[in-house]
């Protein structure tokens, strides 16, 4: 019964307050009821009425009725403190699963209508109280915890106010029509293939994931170069010591390949690839990503990283 009612309520709210990028809280969208404090005031008013009756005291009656009027008036005031507020969803910053996703919004009030003590809250999550007094617009960030990767659709946001007296509460629900991307949580430590060094130099110039250095060229031996890095073949040819150099990663793209990963499990693989993307990005390498259904040509930079991470985040996710 309760469930049915709740479902009914939910669908009604959804119909009444559809998701939108920009929401202006108009009359139809605002709910208002007296608060718990108002119940306390009503008890006081009843007491005063009794006092007025028993002592037949006009002034006590006046205080009693004045407070009653204040209670009624405050409903209008509280309502007005919320009315006209525009909430624009600016976007959701991407984050990794398990971290807090942040929704950025812009609150705009009508001119000449300062708004006080506006409360924005996600149930059981972040909440914030702001004033819009001198500024007409204000950017507000609100965070929400995440569990898995994929799209993040911000849940219904409760925008409320008790201002000015706390005797009434006006509120509305805002469903912002933006979605964010939650990347897979990067695995702690990237898997290092146990393959030998020979595999580094494969014919097609590609390197498997887990490769580290790339052969760049040779130069004259200098004191202190490790024996492993001496180009013995050249020494055999020339009798002079040369050292192999490993430079210019950019010239050679690295590939992050789904199929090359030895571990089972989609999520583990995604987490692993996520870690590698972060590592390569950190090291400013050029890298490409190949996972089933998606191929991202090698590249570097923030945008490239974001593209790769997004591909990982949305792997197998139905576009909602």
């Amino acid at each position, binding site marked *: 019964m309760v469930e049915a009612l709740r479902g009914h309520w939910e669908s009604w709210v959804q119909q009444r307050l559809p998701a939108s990028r920009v929401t202006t809280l108009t009359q139809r969208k605002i709910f208002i009821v007296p608060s718990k404090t108002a119940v306390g005031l009503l008890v006081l008013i009843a007491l005063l009425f009794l006092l007025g*009756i028993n002592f037949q005291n006009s002034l006590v009656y006046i205080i009693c009725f004045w407070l009653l*009027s204040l209670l009624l008036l405050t409903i209008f005031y509280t309502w007005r403190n919320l009315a006209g507020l525009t909430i624009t969803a600016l976007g959701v910053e991407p984050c990794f699963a398990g971290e807090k996703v942040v929704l950025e919004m812009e609150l705009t009030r009508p001119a000449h209508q300062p708004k006080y003590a506006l409360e924005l809250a996600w149930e059981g999550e972040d909440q914030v109280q702001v004033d819009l007094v001198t500024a007409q617009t204000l950017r507000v960030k609100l965070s929400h915890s995440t569990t898995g990767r994929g799209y993040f659709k911000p849940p219904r946001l409760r925008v409320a106010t008790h201002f*000015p007296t706390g005797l009434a509460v006006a509120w509305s629900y805002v469903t912002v029509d933006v979605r964010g991307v939650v990347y897979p949580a990067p695995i702690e430590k990237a898997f290092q293939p146990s393959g030998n060094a020979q595999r580094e130099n494969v014919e097609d110039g590609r390197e498997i994931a887990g490769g580290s250095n790339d052969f760049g060229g040779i130069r004259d031996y200098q004191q202190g170069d490790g024996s492993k890095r001496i180009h013995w073949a050249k020494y055999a040819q020339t009798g002079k010591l040369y050292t192999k150099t490993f430079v210019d990663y950019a010239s050679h793209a690295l590939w992050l390949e789904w199929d090359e990963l030895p571990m089972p499990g989609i999520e583990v693989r995604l987490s692993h690839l996520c870690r590698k993307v972060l590592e390569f990005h950190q090291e400013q390498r050029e890298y490409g990503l190949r996972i089933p259904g998606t191929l991202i040509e090698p590249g570097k930079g923030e945008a490239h990283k974001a593209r790769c991470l997004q591909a990982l985040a949305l792997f197998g996710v139905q576009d909602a």
Partner: protein
Amino acid sequence: MHKQITYTGMIWLLAAQLVVMLPFVFDLPLWLIPVLLFAAGWRLRVLSGAALQPGNVTKALLIGLGIGGLVLSGLKFPSLDAMATLLLLGFAFKSLEVAQRRDAIVVIFIGYFLVALHFLYAQSITAALYGMVSMIVLTGALVGVQQSVAEFSAAQQVRFNLRLSVFMLLQCLPLMVVIFVFAPRLAPLWSLPMTTQQVKTGVADRMAPGDIEKLSQSDALAFRVTFKGRKPAQHELYWRGLVFNHFDGREWRQFEQDIDSQQVQSALLTNYRWQADAIKVQGEPIAYEVVYEKTGQPWLFTLTPAMEVDGEVLRGADYRVMARQALQAPFLLKAVSYPDSQRDLELAPELRQLALELPETGDARTRALAQQLWRETGTEQAYLDRVLARFRDQRFEYTLKPPTLGASDTIDAFLFESQRGFCSHYAGSFVFLMRAAGIPARVVVGYQGGEWNAAGEYLAIHQYDAHAWAEVWLTGQGWVRVDPTTVVAPSRTEQGLEAAMQAEGSFLADSMFSVRKIAWLNGIRQQLDTVQYGWRRWVLGYDGAEQAALLKSLLGTFSVQGVALLMGGLLAAIGLLWLVLLGMTPRREREALEHQLYRRFCAALAKRGVLREPGDAPGVFAAQAAEALPAVAGVIREFTQVYEGICYAPSADGQQATRRLKALLGQLK
């Protein structure tokens, strides 16, 4: 959310507490204020980190001290005083532990209650205005504790909260008045014991030499009267209050046993009850309304005999009118009197006996004088005239500063030695002389005269109008009023005490700077008094009867539909007024021209396939758009530049800039 109250909120709260508690010091123990200041000081130190929150032991100790103080202050339990003091004590202590918004709201609500409670002690316009101030400060505090993020400075915030509070309370007034006028007035459900240390003013229930002179030094208001028809002549205005039958050689009392008002009340209900058929109604009726000030006593003052009285009162066989309870608030009475009526043509034996009794011994010279005069005259009327003539012919003086008369034989001392006295001396000795000759007589105490307020068309009777006169029962005439004072000082009843005391200069001698003595100030005082009277009559005196009368005059015949229609209409009117006041009528927000143009610019670019994200700053968006649409890159850049110029560095010639925007927009389309 932010449930803690801020430092500013706390200051608000303490200020409100102080404002609310202050007026109580006039009626309740004074030490409550230091208690509040102490608690407030501690709380502020806690807030600023200089002290620790008091522990439970400390709190218990403080509360114990407070209760101890309450017990020692000698208040009677249960009484309103004790309850109010207890509430105030809790109110003061509560500030010690206010930390959360919820606590603050409890304090504010108790504050509202205390504002109302104070009106049980004082109901003057001043008290009401002060109550209004308290309401404003309390409401300001209510707003103050809701604010958690202070964008203003403290001073700005105080101003803002006060202004909001005043606005809201003013906007509440119309609705409050409607509810006040139309809300049902019920009879008291139960009666609460009132104050214990009540201040009693006005005429007392006994009369010793000097009592009424003291009263005459007070210019406090006793009551106000509006006459429905003509106003009787000044010398006819004898406002009967109490009747004194018993004399013990020094003091006049109501009955032989020294009884209190409760016993008088029960007497008035039984053997001393008013008998309507004892009166032979004659002459013109005088209809009037009296609003009595709060006196702490049940005595009411009317013209004799009051035949019709409207209200919860008792009437006695001696034609007195008495309230059922001591007056703790202004009291309205409507009455019709027939002063020319004949009263008690047949005098009941017990009343006769009461009106004849004298002390067994004492005042021998007076008794001898009475015997002698009676022998010389022989009839009641002649004897009476003779006694009055004696007052007139001998060197009797009317004075506010009579000499003291000693402990016994006071009548002798007055009649034969000092011969200087006030109304109580003349009335007392006259009644003594009558009784000594076997003529029933009694002392009546009340007020005589009054000050006519032409602006308000009412009569104001002050304490200095207090007066004592005599009533004599004459065969064939019944009770006849005799005022021996008029024989000595005729101006007393014609022009009032002030005129009678002009030679002596003792009128209100103690209040040197009384505004009464300065003509133009006195005019202002009368105007103010008119306002006060309106307040008494229409605000404080608005009760169930008034309400019924008003409804009847508003609706003609009383009907449910009529009331519903009236209420509905009034509420609708108030609702409309509110909407206008609050600016809730839908009003289109006008957007500045440059913003309109920028929106059109974005729309034009969107048509070309470049969408602006809501979060994009104009500059960022312009760079993107220019890159995407190299053909119009120049236009995009310039438009954005001009737009940003208007927004962030407004110039004198904004018109030219917007014209340029329009031109550029034209190129885009």
